[in-house]
């Protein structure tokens, strides 16, 4: 029997992989993709819960998450473009303006 738990564990795995990607990769594009992974994992959990409760609110919430994800991707990619133009790299190790 496939229960809510299965979906949640799957969601956690995907989320963790996303986190690992964000932390370990240097390529800004891959980092953005990892963020997309994390958002999708969250959506999966959200829809799982919604199905469990039979509540459509969770679905509309997931839709908003997608909206945010789209916006995030657009701005993030614009930043990557600008970064590449300015620095000639997409390696986040070389961007250290925040250094204290």
């Amino acid at each position, binding site marked *: 029997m496939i229960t809510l738990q299965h979906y949640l564990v799957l969601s956690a795995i995907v989320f963790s992989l996303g986190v690992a990607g*964000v*932390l370990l990769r240097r390529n800004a594009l891959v980092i953005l993709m990892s963020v997309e992974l994390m958002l999708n994992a969250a959506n999966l959990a959200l829809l799982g819960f919604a199905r469990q409760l039979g509540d459509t609110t969770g679905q509309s919430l997931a839709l908003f998450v997608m909206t945010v994800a789209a916006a995030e991707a657009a701005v993030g990619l614009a930043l990557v473009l600008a970064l590449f133009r300015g620095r000639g790299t997409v390696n986040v190790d070389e*961007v250290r*303006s925040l*250094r*204290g």
Partner: protein
Amino acid sequence: MDIKTSILLWIPLLPLFGAIVNGLFGRHFSRPLVSAIGCGTVGMAFVLGLVASADIFASNGEARLVQSVYAWITAGNISIQLSFLLDSLSVIMVLVVAGVSFLIHVYSTGYMRDDPSHARYFAYLNLFVFSMLVLVLGDNLPVLFVGWEGVGLCSYLLIGFWFEDPAKASAGKKAFIVNRIGDLGFLIGMFLLFGAVGSLSIDDLRAGTAQGLIAPGLATAACLFLFLGATGKSAQIPLYVWLPDAMAGPTPVSALIHAATMVTAGVYMIARLSFLFAISPTASAVVALVGGLTALIAATIGITQKDIKKVLAYSTVSQLGYMFVAVGVGAYFAGIFHLMTHAFFKACLFLGSGAVIHALSGVQDITKMGGLRKKLPWTYWTFLISTLAIAGFPPFAGFFSKDEILWKALSSTSHAPWASWVHLAAYGMGILAAAITSFYMFRLVFLTFHGKSRLDPSIHVHHEMKSMSYPLAVLAGLATVAGWVGASLFGIHSFADFLDPVVGAAQKTAVVMRDFAHNHSIEWAAAVGSVAVAFIGLGLAWLLYIKSPDTPWRLAERFRFTYRLVFNKYWVDEFYEAFIIRPIHAFSVFLWRIVDVVIIDGFGVNGPARLLKGIGHVGRRLQSGNVQAYAFWLFAGVAGALLYLALAVGVI
């Protein structure tokens, strides 16, 4: 309020008006106009004073006028009126102050004729007259204090009148600061009295004293603090050091402020509060003792001084000592009597010295004068008359007042157990000082006017000016006759009777007569004694400075140490400098450089700042600028929180 009462306010206001007009606009006026405003307002004040005092003269001192102008300070239990009081004591003071001021203003029109700051001079001088009149007319101690500090301010301004000379500006500052020290004493004395009586008006204080509100111990404390104020203002030990330096001011100023009027304020104050001093024999004895000591010590310093004005300055200190002896032994009227005669002859002496200095274009060293008798006849004769007066030769004014003081000191004692000795000591010092006074005054006359001229040949001796000579003549005349009004030796008691309504009761409280007090032959013998010492002083001066002019220098060589000790004024200034001023200065630097900068700012303020900065430097390492590192710490934090949660619920 009738007209005579409302006049009181105008007596001080007129000079104030003159001061404001001359001070603000005087530089645009012509010199005669400035002089006219200056002299005119003071002259008017004198006339108003005469008008206002008509009743008091008519009633032989019984009448009194009180004018309450408005409520000045009201707060809590304190209520101070701006009010003026004219009684027989203040009549004498007002007339002496306004009269002498008027003469000196007239004199100044000549003396200061060529000074570029003519208008400023008259403004200051008028301001001084205003303050002095407020002082003597004040009906309560705070109003008196307004005048008291006001004259101190004017003294400061006038001593430093030629401020471009740093030494003169310093002398002014010294005068103000030393006066301030005394003023604090005055303030504390006032506070003590207020605590006991709840009012500072003279009448209330008198009533309170009569009702026994002021305990004897408190009275002594209050009197001693007030006397500290008097020592500052009237240049007594230990605060006399400013007066000799004050000679840096223009000579008419020295005559007016530092001889005739301001410096006598302390004596006036004690006479004004005589009812209070009378119930404190201890304080009175201290006053008498300090007065006697000052009279003697200042006189000895006077012997060696070479500056004509310095000699007169020490002589002033010495004469003020006599007045304090008088008020200390309870002879309040004698103190005021001497105050009045001294105002005339000392003003005359100072103005005479001013005339000499003016004639010699600024020379003040008497060893470089001599033989001026012929060239400056007016000055010489008036100076001589005043010298005879101060030295105590009858029938000049000084003889009567000084003899009165000495006789009262000799013939009285007070309730304090050791007062008998104090009075005798005061008498002894007084008679000794009288001899020395006679000596140094004639030394001054002989060195200045007699003998051969030791003048620098390049100096041309100017003619005497009428505006300067007439006031000299008037003052010399007063120095001759003023003593007669109170010559108790000849049975004339009009002066004492006139003051009796104010100080009589106090005098009776304070004084215990010795058994020979009413023996006229002893009184005559004492008088003869004081004339004798005056002759001794005169004779010595004649011997040393006319007969054999070389002897003084040989004596000075012989008693080298003593001479230097006295010539350098016992090194009192140096003592104050080394043991009071320097330590305070060093301590202040310590407070600033060490306490403020190192301790408070260093440890208290910048210390924590540096600590935080150090922590920040450590924390800065974490800020690699790598966003991923930040994200790592973010997730590490989440992991830590989860771990904690797991441990807390016992999952792991």
